């Protein structure tokens, strides 16, 4: 038993040693996943089913304005607190729009999100904001498109956006309806702060202050009374689309309100 105990302590020591000496996992997750893509997620993802849903109503007892507080807004407020914290501790971050300092991750501020960073995030106005983020994946850096190497399957609107953007060092985000009717129903979308994540947020380096950059998508003009199937995808040269199940290249969700 003594020996067993010794083994256990030894093993504990080993793990602690690994933890101390490796800032990042010993084995990169990239080696695990075939595509090597970071997973894509969205916020507020509250109703978790196989196809996530953002749904709220303005009728009946469950109506949005009747409720003391709204679960979506509440969730977002909580989620975005991390960015308020970051703002308070600015000294831990570098403002990468100018230059990146050693050991200080790039800051992401709530105000960058424009209308999606304040108030009730457009929910009472039936113009909700949805936030796209990608999973932290150490040492992963997107390979940027130059504008001349855009793939065939890229949506036309994104192509135009990329071509016209002066800063092409972005992980591009594109949202649209999954099927043509969805595209019709979804109406116009606007992206904050940019139509992608700025390249300087990559790679994730295991720094404990690292803050996840977001892209807010404001659904300005959704057709009411329909469940609209929306897909948001991220685009870079080193993102492939072979296996949709790994949640690594895009995310799909339903939007519904009346």
């Amino acid at each position, binding site marked *: 038993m003594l020996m067993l105990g010794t083994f256990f302590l030894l093993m504990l020591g080993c*793990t602690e040693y690994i933890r101390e000496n490796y800032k990042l996992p*010993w084995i990169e997750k990239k080696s695990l996943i075939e595509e090597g893509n970071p997973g894509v997620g969205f916020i507020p993802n509250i109703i978790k089913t196989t196809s996530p849903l953002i749904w709220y109503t303005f009728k009946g007892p469950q109506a949005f304005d009747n409720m003391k507080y709204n679960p979506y807004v509440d969730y977002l407020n909580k989620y975005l607190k991390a960015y308020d914290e970051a703002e308070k501790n600015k000294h831990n971050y570098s403002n990468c729009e100018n230059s990146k300092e050693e050991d200080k991750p790039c800051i992401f501020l709530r105000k960058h999100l424009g209308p999606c960073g304040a108030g009730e995030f457009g929910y009472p106005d039936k113009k909700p904001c949805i936030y796209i983020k990608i999973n932290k*994946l*150490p040492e992963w850096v997107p390979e940027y498109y130059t504008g001349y190497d855009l793939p065939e399957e890229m949506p036309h609107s994104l192509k135009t956006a990329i071509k016209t953007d002066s800063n092409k060092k972005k992980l591009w985000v594109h949202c649209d309806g999954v099927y043509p009717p969805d595209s019709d129903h979804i109406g116009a979308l606007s992206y904050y702060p940019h139509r992608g994540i700025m390249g300087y947020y990559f790679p994730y380096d295991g720094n404990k202050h690292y803050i996840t950059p977001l892209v807010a998508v404001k659904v300005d003009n959704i057709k009411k009374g329909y469940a609209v199937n929306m897909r948001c995808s991220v685009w870079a040269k080193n993102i492939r689309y072979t296996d949709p199940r790994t949640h690594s290249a895009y995310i799909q969700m339903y939007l519904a309100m009346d």
Partner: protein
Amino acid sequence: MMRKSSIIRTSSEAGTSVTYIKTLVKTRTPTELDQFKKEISIDDHIISLKKLQERYNTDLQDGLSRVKAGELLRLYGPNCLISSATKSRWLVLAEFLFGGFAALLWVGAALSTIGYLVSYYQDPRTPLDQLYLAGVLVAVILITGIFGYYQEAANTSIMESFKKLVPKFATVIREGNMLTIPAEELVIGDVVEIQGGDCVPADIRIIKSRSLKVDNSSITGESEMQPRSPECTDTNPLETQNLAFYSTNVIEGAGTGVVIATGDNTLIGHIAGLTSGIEPEEMPIKKELKYFIKLITALAIFIGATFFVISIALGYDFFESFIFLIAIIVANVPEGLLVTLTACLTLTARRMSKKNCLVKNLQAIETLGSTSVICSDKTGTLTQNRMTVSHMFYNDTIVDVLDESDKVNRNAEFKNLCRVGILCNRAEFKPEQEKIPILQREVKGDASESAVLKCMEILIGDVMTQRNQMTKICEIPFNSTNKYQVSIHHLQNENKHLLVMKGAPERIIDRCTTYALNGSDVNISSEKKKALQQAVSKLGYMGERVLGFADLMLSKDKFPVGFKFNTDKVNFPLEGLRFVGLMSMIDPPRPNVPNAVEKCRSAGIRVIMVTGDHPITAVAIAKKVGILSSESETIYDVAMKKSISVSKVTAEDKARCSARVITGADLREMSQSKLDSILMTFWEIVFARTSPQQKLKIVESLQRLGYIVAVTGDGVNDSPALKKADIGVAMGISGSDVSKEAADMILLDDNFATIVTGIEEGRLIFDNLKKSIFYVLTSNVPEIIPFILFVTINIPQALSVLAILLVDVGTDLWPAISLAYEKPEADIMSRMPRDPQQDKLVNTRLMSLAYCQIGFIQTCAGYVTWFFVMAQHGFFYDRLIGIRKEWDDPFTNDLADSYGQEWTYEERKILERKGYAAYFLAIVVTQICDAFIVKTRRLSVVQQGMSNWVLNTGILFVIFVAGVILYSPGVNQAMQFERVEWYTFVPSLPFGLFIIIYDEYRRYFVRNYPNGWFARETYY
């Protein structure tokens, strides 16, 4: 299905045609069987013929009337043997599929199906793992069940072999006419004719006999011809000369008899009914398995219930907790064990059949190992079943010609004796046997004449030429009234006639006046006569059959060449002969039997002789083979010492005897408790003159005393005892079909010594099965714990159900089975037979060592390896504890690890499968180390050596299989594994080494302090 009965119409010349019902199968009640177990007690052989005629309403001259016979046939049914209702083949198969261990597996399969259904009801996306498990369990049951069923030769053919014994037709006298009718149509009171070559068609009382001789071997086991005559010579129906029994063979002569019993009521009917109706004792290994199942079930339910309560307390709802309960119970079921057991036994069976030990019932192998007493038949098993001359008496000396034939003093007296032996002998060698050793040659003639012939061929040689030189002029053959045999020969070189006589020694001595002694003929004085008689009884007490020899040179004057000798009106002297000597013969023991009996003794196994032969012969053989040790004394020894007959031995002397000889007559009067107490008080016992029912009684008595009884026998008479015994052993060469059907094992070489080999194998397999079970059980622990931790401290699953199955019915199998090849650790034949009450196949010590110690270490190894892989990828143990809910939530796609790295559900599942692979690898590594420690229960592995190459290859095979499973693409996906780095097994190595070192120390203490704590608490 067997038909229960059929309706048959007599079509024979019996006249009036009668329709009767023939019962084919009958369910016999225990009382009926008890009736069969009783000795037949009849007085049909004692009463006068007149009374007999009245009793059966028949006419001894003309037989029954046809009408009456028809009536009786319809009333009592046909004269045939009726099978006891045996278990149908389906029932036997069902027993294999649903009995014992299979039942446990069925429960496991059912539970896991229920578990699946319950969780499916809760969440239709439940993985199919539980169903796989159920499927594998069912497959294991079916495969091993059907295999076992085919291995066990069904006992349904016992009756068939009995039916081969009985005749088809009988010659009967009805209304004064001689008819040949199917033997089935015989009824009580029928007068039947029998003659040499026939088979007695029912139990009959002999009313007329013309030198009728029968072979009663199916009743007594002794294949000696017995004369039959109308006189009642004994009150015991088995001994009297005026009864002949159904199915016995008529060797020579002819006779007439009245049927006194038919069908089931005959003696053979009783034996057949008993044999087919007796339920054999439950195999000890079955009892062991039952005990084991009890243990493991109790353990499974205990662990399951504990965690059911814990999970309720932890706030799981009832259904979830119930699923946990089921999963834990099922995880305790050792899926591979049944396969391992069956395979181990089959391998041993194959090994044994190479050693001339054919096992009909796999489980009988182990029974042989736990045997504590052997009831051995004498003739054919212990002895060669071949009469051989062992002593000669001439010139006042007894000479042993069997063992010391080279020391024979070849003086004139010897030559005289041999001349008589050669001449007064009708036996002849069958032709074309020159190349066969003399003792094994086949001979035409009766047993004692052949013995003399062979003895002469060995001592003198060329018997036939000498016989031809001294041509036989005439002879009077042996008959039971004269008890001698005479022939007259012409001596060419002397041109004289020589009269030679052989026969019962007393009769021969009476007819002699002179005695060849020291080169001259001396007159036989009354003292000399006494001395000669003493020599006869001395040989008799050696259990030998004695023949006297005499000759007389006929004078040339009275009996010139060409003299017409008349054997009907004897015109030559038959008295006043010259006594030349004695020869005595015995059926000698097989050469290696004494050695085997000695081995049995040192292995703590009692050997009891149970024979149908005479007590004196039985005692003599028992002494020769060591069943009665040389220092022990029986009443026969006392009688011989004091030169008195056995009946005159005083009670005081009887009480001093250290060994008992019990005859059938003694047994008849003995109560059950008396028999029990004799069997308990006397270690050395010989039963002689026993009937089939008595053999059964002895076996039952021994079993009541807690012995595990092996019975050996070759005859029909042994079959009830063979069936009842814990293990019945029949003889392959000399054994009757019936005995082979009733037995569990067959000795292909008829040799008692082979049983000892069998016992050795049986004991070895018991030891080795313990090891196999230990090996299989150990890996249960690292398989259960992940599940428990999953529930209690909410860490992700470390091992999948599929991986558990891979270990249990995959990598564990070969090493577990190969332990059957492990050589014994010490001389297993020098220890006592195991005590079925104390020495269990699986005991709590084995369980606690396997579960709490080695299994626990394996679990540690598994988790350390698993944590190692998890940490490699970013999840440290502190992050893992309590993570389960989020981990298993398919919609949490950004679960952060210890580094903040975020994981989608699918990515986590890939990592989980890597974890399975790591944990699996750790189990494989530690199980390999486990294989090193289970090789021995007491010795160090260094002492035992690694010479079990089946195990060694098995270990290599396991490594290979693990490699293929983990690293070949496709296969690993199918088995729910992911590739792990090759060095992943390293963290489990120290634990493996620890297992080996730990257990070496444990066994060191067990070895050196046999009464110490380690031996008491951990020696399994």
